[in-house]
């Protein structure tokens, strides 16, 4: 049976091994044979005897404490809660000589016990992490920890992985003998895990981000949206905390309308307002429409002035008309500008690259002359004036427009007729007020692709 020693026995290893490797998958501890062989089940340790050097039993393990939230890839075990007699005390990790399956061995006969006081980043494992939700960033799924695996890495014992398999749950239901035996074949490396715990948000704000948080930010908005939908309320808000508003807003745009409504209603109003304001205007309007009137007004009130005025204006259009699902993000250029100047305008609006596929060209009187595809800007030299560019090929650069009251079907027809990736929405005077991209029309035309959650079956 494998045993793990926390001390000098493994002195050959670099103490800093937990920081080795940068990219996902590199330097993962659970891939190493010696780590896998030394894994101890945290679930099996709960209730296990604590013995001193002489082999005498002095108490029982109640729970394990780890510094979960820090820059370290693999959280170190900082101590244990131990029941000695009737009292539960904190035992610092430094007094632990080794942990084995179902047994903790102490370094000395003298016990240094004190009351437990949570320090920055510390979490109680069995109570706050085991059996709670966490995110597997490799598999991009929300799971519940069935077991936590510990292993000695250099001089410290670290949390190296999590087990989520059904078999492990059954093992924990079985007799004590079997409960402690780890089954590392289905282990998810801690490097790919985003844990949650209640006091995470209450913790010190200086806590550095681990790589997994970066992995979260690299995830596709659609995957993040799925994660947000699967998480419970506190976990969901905690995940939003860790994403910057732009990433979060992108994910929100991909969520099912009902899920998004629930998320916005349960979030702090200030945060909900900030998130909605960061969303693309057309998606933000959809989200606001789904909210009850009072909550909608509250959110608008809390938004920055420019977002509020844009969204209020869009909300005034009926939902099923072009004005109701267009985006107001428009890049504009003038006939007397050069190609280079227009390119410069676009460069400043990189954040909205998903919304801009052409540049609206206005003449001196602010009248709409053309809708210039980005390709044209690439194909012509920076010095060329827009006027000259239009002169060459005005007929196929004529703007494809729809009326602000056009229906989805009419917009679709216009897209098909003109074979453009988007159409401009114009008001009664013919001046452009928004744009509808082909994918927005797809969204509106495709049948509901949502996942059907059970409680909603009855509504």
């Amino acid at each position: 049976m494998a045993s793990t020693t926390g001390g000098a026995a493994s002195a050959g290893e670099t103490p800093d091994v937990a920081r080795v490797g940068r990219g996902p998958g590199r330097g993962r501890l659970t891939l190493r044979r010696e780590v896998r062989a030394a894994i101890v089940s945290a679930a099996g340790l709960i209730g296990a005897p604590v013995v001193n050097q002489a082999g005498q039993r002095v108490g029982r393990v109640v729970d394990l404490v780890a510094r979960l939230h820090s820059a370290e890839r693999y959280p170190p075990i900082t101590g244990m809660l131990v029941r000695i007699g009737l009292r539960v005390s904190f035992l610092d990790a430094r007094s632990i000589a080794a942990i084995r399956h179902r047994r903790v061995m102490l370094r000395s006969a003298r016990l240094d016990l004190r009351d437990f006081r949570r320090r920055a980043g510390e979490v109680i494992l069995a109570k706050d992490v085991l059996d709670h939700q966490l995110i597997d960033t490799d598999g991009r799924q929300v799971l519940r920890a069935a077991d936590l695996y510990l292993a000695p890495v250099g001089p410290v014992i670290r949390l190296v992985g999590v087990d989520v398999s059904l078999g492990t749950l059954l093992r924990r239901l079985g007799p004590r003998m079997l409960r402690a035996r780890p089954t590392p074949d289905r282990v998810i490396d801690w490097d790919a895990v985003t844990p949650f715990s209640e006091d995470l948000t209450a913790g010190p704000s200086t806590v550095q981000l681990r790589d997994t948080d970066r992995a979260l930010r690299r995830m596709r908005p659609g995957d993040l949206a799925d994660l947000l939908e699967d998480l419970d309320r506190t976990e969901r808000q905690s995940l939003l905390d860790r994403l910057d508003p732009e990433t979060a807003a992108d994910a929100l745009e991909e969520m099912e309308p009902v899920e998004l409504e629930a998320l916005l209603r349960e979030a702090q109003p200030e945060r909900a307002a900030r998130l909605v304001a960061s969303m693309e205007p057309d998606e933000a309007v959809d989200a606001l429409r789904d909210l009850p009137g009072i909550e909608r007004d509250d959110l608008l009130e809390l938004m920055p002035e420019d977002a509020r005025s844009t969204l209020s204006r869009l909300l005034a259009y009926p939902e099923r008309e072009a004005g109701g699902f267009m985006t107001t993000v428009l890049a504009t250029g003038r006939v007397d500008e050069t190609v280079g100047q227009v390119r410069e305008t676009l460069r400043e609006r990189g954040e909205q690259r998903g919304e801009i596929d052409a540049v609206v060209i206005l003449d001196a009187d602010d009248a709409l002359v053309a809708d210039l595809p980005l390709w044209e800007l690439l194909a012509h030299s920076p010095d060329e004036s827009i006027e000259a560019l239009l002169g060459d090929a005005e007929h196929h650069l004529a703007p494809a427009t729809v009326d602000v009251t056009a229906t989805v079907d009419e917009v679709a027809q216009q897209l098909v007729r003109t074979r453009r990736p988007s159409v401009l929405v114009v008001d009664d005077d013919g001046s452009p007020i928004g744009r509808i991209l082909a994918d927005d029309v797809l969204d509106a035309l495709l049948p509901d692709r949502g996942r059907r959650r059970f409680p909603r079956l009855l509504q």
Partner: protein
Amino acid sequence: MNSTSEVPQTQRGGRRGRLASVVRRSPWLRSTFVYAAALGPGLIAANAGNDAAGIATYASAGSEFTYQTLFFMVLVTIALVTVQTMAVRLGAYTGKGIGALIREQFSLRLTALAMLCLLTANTGLVVAEFAGIGAAFELVGISRFWVVPIAALAIWGMVLFGSYRYAERVFLVLSLGFFAYPIAVVLVKPDWGQVASSLLVPNFSASSGFLLLGVALIGTTVSPYMQFYAAAAVVDRGAGPGEYRAARFDAATGAIFACVIAACIIIATGATIGGSGPLESAAEAAQALRPVAGDGAQMLFAIGLLGASALAGAVVPLSSSYAISEAIGVERSVSRRFREAPLFLGIFTVQIAVGATIALTPVNLIGLLIGTQVVQGLITPIVLTFILALANKKELLGSAANGPVFRIFATLLVSGISLMSVLLLLNTVLGFFGVAW
């Protein structure tokens, strides 16, 4: 874990508080008429309680004991309101379903116990729903050996391939047939004096028949799955602490409404065939609707029974799949494809298969219907204990945890229900050894 400091998850009020006040502005209107017109959650919750098993149990109570069980139903109503309130509070304050809460707050073994109880109770209920479908068709002369397998396949397929939402509305409309019961109560002109005294004066009988039916009445009215559903629905709407009062009001009125319908079934049946012994067939139960529908009573009863059974036939197995998947922590949406959520749909499929198979055994369907409710009644106290323990937890709910008075009251209630179950078990076990009660 007394050495750790807890951060109670109570939060804010502002925006939600205002919403709740608007919701409260016209509560009665909203909860009865508007809901009935819009076929909203309140009505569905009420109707889900009055499913095939419920109808059979209430009708049997009327047929065997006339109005004698009415006072007991008043107690059951109080129990249902209390329990639903706790379930809704758990959902609103934690934002988690009861399955997840049990897994996070109790040991894994206790979680397994809770889930096993829920699964057993719900599988019993699925048996009852298929028995109900069988009974409905036997009323119009079609053998259940044809109907039950087809119905099982149809419900399974509709849920899997996503067309259930549409069928659900049809079932819901069919099940409205049971709203004929309150009309029947008025038309049948029962002895109102006797009804009133039965409602107000405690009236228990020490017979084992009464005990058996009492446990069945608890099981069918305070169904474990309804508590899981109540919490899940609140969470799903994103309703937070500020909306708790509105959610509680909805839950309470829904519960009272369901119990009023139940009492109407008991009164209507009691007035027509009361005192004729335990209910033996669906045809007998249909007699209670004769004042409304005359010779069409059997047809009306069959339609209502079919609607109610088919409605609950999908919802009940889904609720156990949902709770168990939530506790285990795997994919819990009703996805389109089987392989996306094998556990969820596996549990669903097994329940449907077991339910339909047992409903096909050649036993008396009404006996089977009531028997499954006795099983539910025996399991209910275990599930209620979990909910009570969760709602008592200060570290979970903070100031929204059960106060001392509520705690004593709820504990008494759960103890009372448990006592009945224990008595029934004792009675049954003693019965095996030939000891009569």
